[in-house]
């Protein structure tokens, strides 16, 4: 690890990686600064700029959403020669757009990593990293030039790049390092390891090496997946040993991905620190230990067959690839129904001539064709096309479902090999699903082929039979897919110990959980982006304080009281200007006028009565009341009140601060955490 790395502890890196998920608020320079202060008790010695992958207009050449999300943080201080960036590739999310969208990440885990057939997230990550690194270098160059023009003696320090990734993000950042070698260090937290199949798909040189080493055609999935996994692992780890030497893993013993990292193809590169985050739980690794490689191999081949469907059309494509069924099918059924209704309301009739052969009795030696007009309903073009499409789709469903049912035994076998409690119940549901799939296949039967042959011969008049047959199949598909969904729901409701263990393994997978486990010994845990300090008193009572929240309240409260003080000052100024000074000015003006009148009475001759009179003088009996006491008292009272309220509020905020400082007096950082921002 570099001595001068800004994010120089596992906890700091884990917290920043957690921040990248943006669960409560989007990662920002302020949040990064706050976390740095909380962990170090010091201000961050650099300007921070955050770059988001979503801000790039174009993420890959395909122009599709691969599900990739990432952030690059740039720390820069020209005077101190600090120029570092951290590329953070986000881990798996249950669905894009905060869980509402498609589960691209988990699909990528299967197709991109385990099978090595989809590259889109890796390509997007590489594009993002390259584009932002270029941007940073241009920005730094411009800054150094400006400084030189101003006469500063500064030299450009090359950008030092680091990588952090959690879960799927851990896989992506390792892949970037293995393919580009551009990071000084890469930190993979509870990562999905790179797989030899993934690397064979992306790294041409490695693919050629595999070909030479194992004498296979690596473009042939069956040959590639047939290489004994242990031999492939040894070869691949040796091949990437040098490139992977700066990869540092931080792994929770109970992590779910760590549990499957022994499966075929997964590689272990760099060094690894394993932490026990839950001493009472040994993880789900033992429950998965008996899964046979043969079953995984079969699953892998089936998934490799499905991968192109996902690459082409995402989740819809995947469903279509596996079953032949997708949203489009149900739209097509609706179209056929609509067209049929239109047709039944009154078809156009046509009268084509059909030649009828006449011959035989009573003239056996002669025969002739006589054209006879026969009424045939004119089939609308729309209905004809829709029926044809539906028929083709039915044939597709038949083929895909046959393939899926053939592969289900591998899934049953994988499940049977685990130590999952209630697995028999789950298997029984899976068998019922298989039964529903077979019902669909049975309903299709041979009808599809027959219809296909006839529908392409438009003169045939058995259209009603075709329509009824196809709609019966469509109804069966609708009915059975609803049954399948219900069985899937029941599988997830099966009470079993594995579900509990699995949820623990999922929890252990979380990057926040890792950070908490690391900080536990120091009386710290994390909730979201917040730091919780705790300690047990001598009487056994556990005291917990959300330090991040307390600091936020303290700083915000102080800011508000500072703003209130400004308002109070402004109010005093206005009071003086509008009442005290205004009164005085008006009084002075009046006295001046009185003085003028008394000194220049002739100027006021217009006040004299009519007639021959001469002005002799004017006396003003001035009566000027002072500013009313009630007015000055009202304001003085208000100013006093706000002054006191200010003191009380600040005292309360300081009490919060001092009680926390006293409670954790051994930690000198706390005081700085309250002060710095």
């Amino acid at each position, binding site marked *: 690890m570099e001595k001068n790395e800004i994010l120089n502890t596992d906890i700091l890196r884990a917290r920043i990686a957690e921040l990248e998920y943006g669960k409560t608020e989007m990662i920002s320079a302020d949040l990064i600064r706050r976390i740095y202060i909380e962990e170090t008790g010091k201000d961050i010695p650099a300007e921070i700029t955050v770059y988001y992958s979503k801000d790039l207009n174009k993420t890959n050449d395909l122009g599709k959403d691969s599900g990739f999300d990432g952030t690059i943080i740039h720390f820069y201080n020209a005077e101190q020669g600090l120029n570092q960036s951290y590329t953070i590739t986000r881990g798996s999310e249950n669905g894009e757009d905060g869980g509402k969208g498609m589960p691209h990440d988990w699909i990528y885990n299967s197709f991109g990593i385990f099978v090595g057939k989809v590259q889109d997230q890796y390509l997007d990550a590489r594009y993002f990293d390259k584009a932002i690194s270029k941007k940073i270098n241009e920005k730094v160059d411009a800054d150094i030039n400006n400084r030189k023009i101003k006469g500063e003696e500064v030299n450009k320090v090359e950008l030092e790049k680091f990588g952090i990734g959690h879960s799927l993000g851990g896989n992506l950042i390792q892949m970037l390092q293995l393919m580009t070698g551009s990071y000084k260090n890469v930190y993979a937290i509870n990562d999905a390891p790179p797989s030899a199949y993934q690397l064979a798909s992306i790294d041409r040189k490695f693919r050629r090496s595999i070909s030479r080493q194992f004498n296979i055609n690596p473009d042939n999935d069956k040959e590639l997946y047939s290489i004994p996994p242990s031999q492939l692992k040894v070869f691949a780890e040796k091949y990437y040993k040098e490139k992977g030497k700066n990869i540092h893993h931080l792994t929770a013993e109970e992590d779910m991905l760590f549990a499957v990292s022994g499966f075929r193809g997964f590689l272990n590169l760099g060094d690894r620190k394993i932490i026990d985050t839950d001493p009472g739980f040994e993880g789900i690794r033992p429950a998965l230990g008996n899964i046979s490689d043969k079953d995984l191999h079969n699953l892998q081949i089936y998934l490799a067959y499905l991968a192109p469907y996902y690459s082409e059309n995402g989740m819809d494509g995947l469903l279509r690839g596996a079953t032949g069924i997708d949203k489009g099918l149900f739209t097509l059924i609706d179209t056929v129904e609509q067209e049929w209704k239109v047709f039944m309301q009154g078809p156009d009739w046509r009268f084509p001539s059909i030649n009828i052969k006449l011959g035989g009795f009573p003239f056996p030696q002669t025969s002739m064709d006589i054209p006879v007009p026969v009424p045939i309903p004119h089939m609308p073009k729309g209905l004809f096309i829709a029926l044809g499409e539906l028929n083709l789709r039915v044939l597709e469903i038949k083929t895909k479902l046959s393939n899926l049912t053939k592969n289900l035994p591998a899934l049953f076998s994988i499940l049977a090999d685990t130590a999952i409690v209630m697995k028999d119940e789950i298997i029984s549901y899976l068998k019922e699903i298989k039964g529903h799939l077979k019902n669909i296949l049975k309903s299709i039967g041979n009808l599809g082929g027959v219809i296909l042959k006839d529908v392409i011969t438009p003169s045939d008049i058995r259209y009603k039979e075709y329509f009824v047959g196809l709609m019966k199949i469509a109804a069966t598909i609708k009915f059975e897919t609803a049954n399948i969904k219900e069985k899937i729901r029941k599988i997830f409701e099966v009470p079993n110990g594995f579900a509990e263990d699995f949820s623990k393994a999922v929890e252990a997978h979380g990057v926040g959980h890792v950070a908490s486990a690391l900080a536990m010994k120091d009386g710290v845990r994390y909730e979201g982006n917040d730091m919780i300090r705790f300690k047990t008193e001598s009487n056994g009572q556990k005291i917990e304080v*959300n330090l991040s929240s*307390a600091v936020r*309240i303290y700083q915000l409260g102080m800011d508000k009281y500072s703003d209130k003080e400004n*308002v109070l000052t402004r*109010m005093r100024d206005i009071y003086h200007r509008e009442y005290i000074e205004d009164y005085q000015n008006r009084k002075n003006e009046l006295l001046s006028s009185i003085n003028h009148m008394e000194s220049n009475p002739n100027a006021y001759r217009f006040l004299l009565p009519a007639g021959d009179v*001469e002005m002799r003088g004017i006396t003003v009996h001035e009566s000027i009341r002072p500013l009313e006491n009630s007015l000055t008292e009202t304001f003085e009272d208000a100013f006093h009140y706000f002054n006191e309220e200010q003191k009380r509020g600040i005292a309360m905020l300081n009490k919060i601060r001092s009680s*926390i400082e006293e409670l954790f007096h051994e930690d000198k950082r706390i005081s700085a955490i309250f002060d710095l921002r």
Partner: protein
Amino acid sequence: MGQINRTYRFRPYEDLKNKSALFKHQFEEMGRLGYEMVMSIEKELASSLGRIVDESLKALLQNHKENESIINRYISQMDLVADRYSQNINDMKEQSITIYYEEVEISAPK
């Protein structure tokens, strides 16, 4: 010498009641700052911060509630204050004066 006692308005009448608006705005600003602080505190209190902090914050919230009613009282007083000031100033502009004069005999032309 004759004299006349009367009042004289040295400056025209002015309506100064609108001075209250300037102060109302400042009091409202004071109230807004307090409200924003309370909203932030309540948001933070939604997830427990720990007993020590919670108690101090509840005291801070109580402080703000009292503050709110006092601010409202001051806001309503501002109209009264401006009204009386306006009256005071306009009264002041009118003063009692005594004018002294002499009647002049005009001699008939010869």
